[in-house]
């Protein structure tokens, strides 16, 4: 069994993003996707602190303290990029103008519910940031995450146990083991990492899985 590495997962997501899409890549693992968008394909990256056309991290030594992304890391601006204030930035998100948002998650349920902001009902001061706006507002929400927690518990479940970020928001999940669509009937497996079997995937998933892989030629 050869699970995908984080960079392989990022590459796997990146090839599925068509030219012309406006995308918001969540803090953490999804940020890696930016480095794997195929050369020559124009995908416009949005950062919720008011940037469209965000470029890669600058060379060391040429960081600009005025130009940071939502994770507060220095970034650059592509030609054609723009700046705007927070209400406009979230109008892009909440108004359904962002084609795709890729988020990390603690749990995704088979009906598309996502939990990614608080790990317990008792965590009284969790940090939500823009997660609820993105999950509820983007045209499509994909999740990129490990298939299980560090101690091996499934993160794909029938019903989220952590506090929800949004209901029925997620349409696709990329893990280190598989690519899955969220359908009306639940999770449908589109692709498996090398040498991962459906049987193994079922053993680390707490929800039914349909096998929707295209027949191997």
């Amino acid at each position: 069994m050869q699970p995908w590495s984080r960079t392989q997962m990022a590459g796997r997501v990146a090839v599925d993003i068509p030219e012309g899409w406006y995308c918001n890549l969540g803090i953490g693992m999804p940020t890696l996707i930016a480095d794997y968008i195929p050369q020559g394909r124009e995908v416009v990256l949005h950062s919720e602190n008011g940037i469209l056309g965000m470029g890669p991290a600058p060379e060391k030594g040429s960081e600009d303290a005025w130009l940071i992304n939502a994770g507060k890391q220095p970034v650059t601006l592509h030609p054609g990029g723009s700046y705007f204030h927070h209400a406009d930035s979230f109008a892009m998100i909440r108004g359904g103008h962002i084609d795709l948002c890729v988020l990390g998650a603690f749990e995704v349920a088979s009906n598309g519910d996502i939990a990614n902001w608080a790990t317990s009902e008792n965590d009284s001061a969790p940090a939500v940031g823009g997660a609820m706006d993105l999950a509820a507002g983007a045209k499509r929400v994909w999740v990129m995450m490990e298939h299980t927690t560090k101690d091996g518990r499934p993160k794909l479940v029938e019903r989220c146990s952590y506090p929800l970020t949004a209901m029925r928001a997620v349409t696709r999940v990329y893990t280190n083991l598989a690519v899955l669509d969220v359908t009306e009937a639940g999770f449908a497996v589109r692709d498996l990492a090398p040498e991962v079997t459906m049987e193994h995937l079922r053993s680390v998933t707490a929800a039914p899985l349909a096998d929707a892989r295209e027949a191997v030629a």
Partner: protein
Amino acid sequence: MIDKIVRDMAAAMEGVRDGSTVLIGGFGAAGQPDDLIDGLIEQGAKDLTVVANNAGSGRTGLARLMELGRVRKIICSFPRSAGSVVFEDLYKAGKLELEIVPQGTLAERMRAAGAGVPAFFTPTAAGTKLAQGKETREFNGRPHVMELALPGDVALVEAWEADRWGNLTYRRSGRNFNPVMAMAATLTIVQAQNIVELGEIEGERVVTPGIFVNRVVNVRRGAPWA
């Protein structure tokens, strides 16, 4: 002659009252009006409700204002971040009230206040614990949460250029919450890196029109990391 440029920080902060709701711009260090926060510390107003995206970091600026016991409540989207030690200590000790608001709802609540919209419905947070206790209504087959406008008594804003009418520009991602906060407050106080002649910011370049601005103080502090 209209001249919103004040001579010093004391004049900028004059009349800020105890119990005020203070909107503080910035996202990370970019566009954060640190000198105005220091001015507010000096000025002495207390029992404040602060609205900001983050709950301060380190022991300066907003964190210092909180550590001095001057903040009763903070309304923000992301209280815990690297170095938010003062927030965590005060919050654990029960000395600080906290209201968590999704970042886009936070911006929109202030935009609504500035635009005279008392409340609005949004799908953000529907079905989550941040919607508990709020009116929910269905539109287009989808649940929406009613959110109230969030006006400020005072806004503290950092701008790049300002003229004597209070027209403003911002620098790159330093814009963030500053323009919506400027329009949402009764008294908008600006620290501007550059004061320019009226007309130097051409109409097309004005980001915040002076109508939203009351006072401007010149603070040439350089880059946010400097």
